[in-house]
């Protein structure tokens, strides 16, 4: 089941069942494959019925797709999770401290640990945030840390998502679906709950209410609208938190507050969980063409009239060029060695690194600094000669736009296929909530899986699927 080079989370490297999977495997072996195939179809119907779809950009507006769901859970032991969650917490603390520092005193630059131009020349740096300290000092309230695994004890942070990480609704619905389909499995196995995420999210957001808020904070979710690819998630989270789901045209600035148009007139909002990018947030302060934002919200924000979660300008912390400095950043702000490792990264802005990358293109993964969703990237080992040649031209034209990393042999987890279990590469996005009350990490997160054999691209926009992720109570 495993070919020795790649670490399989169920079978290790030598086809020996790993302990987190032992109870699951006993159950699985006693199951009739025909029944499981039927359950797999049932899962698809359930997702369609609940409307867990995403819209594909560039396709007709009415087009809705399901993200494929695989019924085999990805299982993490409590001990493994404990280490991971400590590392995540450390990293998220450092990110918030870094953001505060960057928009205020910039000690890290003065200390020579981060070059000035990494900030001053960075598109993700938001000058309107200079000198602004958000309520409670929290910049990034909701964070997704993308992790990959390469061995028993080897985890790497692939990417930090400090702007508006998505996918948490799939984490929650994957679990609901599994509970619905295999209740007997959960009765046997002690899996840690994820279902309190929405109430934790609401509490965490409410704890960041601005100074002008008197009384219980009013929270709302801001969506670009029903044609946005993540609309399902926006409505799902608003529904689960029991708060309003608003669009820009529902809001306006009234008496120094951001207020929503209700059937009884305008009512102020205290905390806005926005799922709209910085650039579209405020046509008066950012992109003047934006139809999605609220004119003047930034002025209200700076005056303490509303909390925007995540704060504008947090992108400076999850930028891929900054990523390569994360080990230094963690150490600088926490005074500790980073618990979670970074993937070694070559910054193509650096001449020596660029040369190395150009010499080794066929072995490296090269990414755009501001790219996301798996687009605009080169995976050397699987790319054709022509793809590599084309990419070389792009890279040489604008080296500062790229970073490169070694191609990691990502761990696999079995998926359920017609021919039984088959290993596929996975990553993991745990979700983290930050408030002045502390950091809350939901056990597990979203496991994305590359459904194509041998593929390393897990993005849903490019044929990836998801799995339920279990953290066991040891």
């Amino acid at each position, binding site marked *: 089941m495993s070919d020795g080079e790649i670490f399989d989370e169920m079978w290790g490297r030598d086809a020996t069942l790993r302990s987190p999977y032992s109870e699951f495997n006993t159950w699985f072996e006693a199951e009739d494959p025909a029944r499981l195939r039927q359950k797999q179809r049932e899962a698809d119907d359930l997702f369609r019925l609940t*409307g867990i779809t995403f819209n594909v950009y560039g396709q007709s507006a009415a087009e809705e797709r399901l993200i494929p769901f695989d019924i085999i859970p990805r299982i993490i032991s409590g001990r493994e999770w404990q280490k991971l969650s400590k590392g995540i917490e450390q990293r998220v603390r450092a990110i918030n401290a870094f953001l505060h520092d960057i928009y205020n005193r910039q000690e890290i630059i003065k200390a020579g640990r981060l070059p000035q131009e990494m900030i001053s020349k960075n598109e993700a740096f938001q000058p309107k945030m200079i000198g602004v300290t958000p309520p409670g000092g929290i910049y990034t309230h909701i964070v997704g840390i993308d992790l990959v695994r390469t061995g028993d004890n080897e985890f790497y942070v692939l990417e930090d998502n400090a702007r508006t990480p998505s996918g948490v609704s799939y984490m929650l619905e994957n679990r609901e679906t599994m509970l619905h389909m295999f209740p007997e499995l959960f009765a046997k196995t002690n899996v840690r709950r994820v279902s309190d995420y929405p109430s934790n999210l609401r509490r965490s957001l409410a704890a960041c209410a601005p100074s002008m808020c008197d009384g219980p904070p009013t929270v709302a979710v801001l969506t670009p609208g029903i044609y946005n690819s993540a609309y399902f998630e926006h409505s799902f989270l608003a529904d689960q938190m029991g708060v309003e789901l608003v669009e820009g045209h529902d809001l306006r600035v009234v008496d120094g507050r951001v207020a929503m148009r209700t*059937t009884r007139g305008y009512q102020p909002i205290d905390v806005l969980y926005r799922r709209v990018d910085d650039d579209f947030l405020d046509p008066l302060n950012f992109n003047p063409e934006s139809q999605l934002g609220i004119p003047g919200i930034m002025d209200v924000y700076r005056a303490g009239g509303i909390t925007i979660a995540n704060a504008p300008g947090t992108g400076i912390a999850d930028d891929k060029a900054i990523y390569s400095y994360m080990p230094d950043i963690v150490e600088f702000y926490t005074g500790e060695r980073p618990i979670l490792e970074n993937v070694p990264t070559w910054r193509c802005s650096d001449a020596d690194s660029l040369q190395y990358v150009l010499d080794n293109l066929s072995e490296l993964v090269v990414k755009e600094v501001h790219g996301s969703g798996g687009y605009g990237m080169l995976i050397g080992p699987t790319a054709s000669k022509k793809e590599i040649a084309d990419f070389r031209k792009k890279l040489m034209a604008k080296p500062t736009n790229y970073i490169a990393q070694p191609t990691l042999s990502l761990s696999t987890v079995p998926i359920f296929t017609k021919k039984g279990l088959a290993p596929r590469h996975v990553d993991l996005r745990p979700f983290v909530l930050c408030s002045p009350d502390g950091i809350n990490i939901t056990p597990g997160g979203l496991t994305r899986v590359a459904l194509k054999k041998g593929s390393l691209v897990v993005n849903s926009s490019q044929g990836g699927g998801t799995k339920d992720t279990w953290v066991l109570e040891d």
Partner: protein
Amino acid sequence: MLGKTANGLFWMYRSLERAENTSRLIETGQRIALTRTGDADDEWRSIMQTAGVEFSYNLSHDEVAKDQVIDWMLRSKDNPSSVLSTIAAARQNARMVRTALTMEVWEAVNACYMATKEDLARKVSERDLPAVLKNIRQRTALVRGTTHGTMLRNDLYDFARIGTFLERADNTARILDVKYYVLLPSVFAVGGTVDNVQWELILRAVSARGGYRTVYGSTINSRDIAQFLILDKRMPRSLNFCVSKLRDNLGYLAQDYGSKLPSLDIADRLAQRFSIHDVDEIFDFGLHEYIQSVLSSLGELSGQIEEDYRFYV
């Protein structure tokens, strides 16, 4: 509650009601075409008038032909009032107000959309038509049932009901508007075959045949039909019934919000028209004029609700 949400709920339920009414109209047309001899084109024309789609049909068709009319009313994407368009609109509105719906209501409307879309993916054959139409109404009934059984009785529910009853009143008024002349006392062929077919069409179009028989027995006459569809307080599709529900729900909103808005005044005035005791006064006034003024008040009411509850601005 957001103004946008009130708007979305209102239109979600209005669209569902319209889908249901349109499917009932198609069924009525089909039934009459099958059971009468001679040319049924006129009936299809009045059916389209009732559904308010005749004008747009004529723009894209040269003749009134049964197959084409059914297809236009059932599944045309160019006809915003076709069953498929209205169910898609209901589901789109449901997506917009997802946070205001219970899981069961959302799943019912989503399932309604998915199944109807599949049923109507291709032209429906005459043989399949009865079952397809019946399924559509069962699915919309399921949405109404889950709404009734699972939604809180708060302002959300009021807007859902207001959308439903505005559309229903409008539909009943429109069929009376289109067919008023067959209900007028006439010296010709009163109670003849032609009248019976016409009267049956009216009753079928609002699912009122059984109710009518229960109340009036098996003899159909135009005066009783008018009485039943306009003034009867028990008949759930009569104008009087629908308007009293509209007034109730607007009244709950006024209570809930602590302020009486102009839309409630319009509903009050509209309801007063039905407080007259019998239909003879309506005939004296002029059935057509009476129905016309009801239709225009319903339009005015709809606009005022949008304004009072900040649907758009």
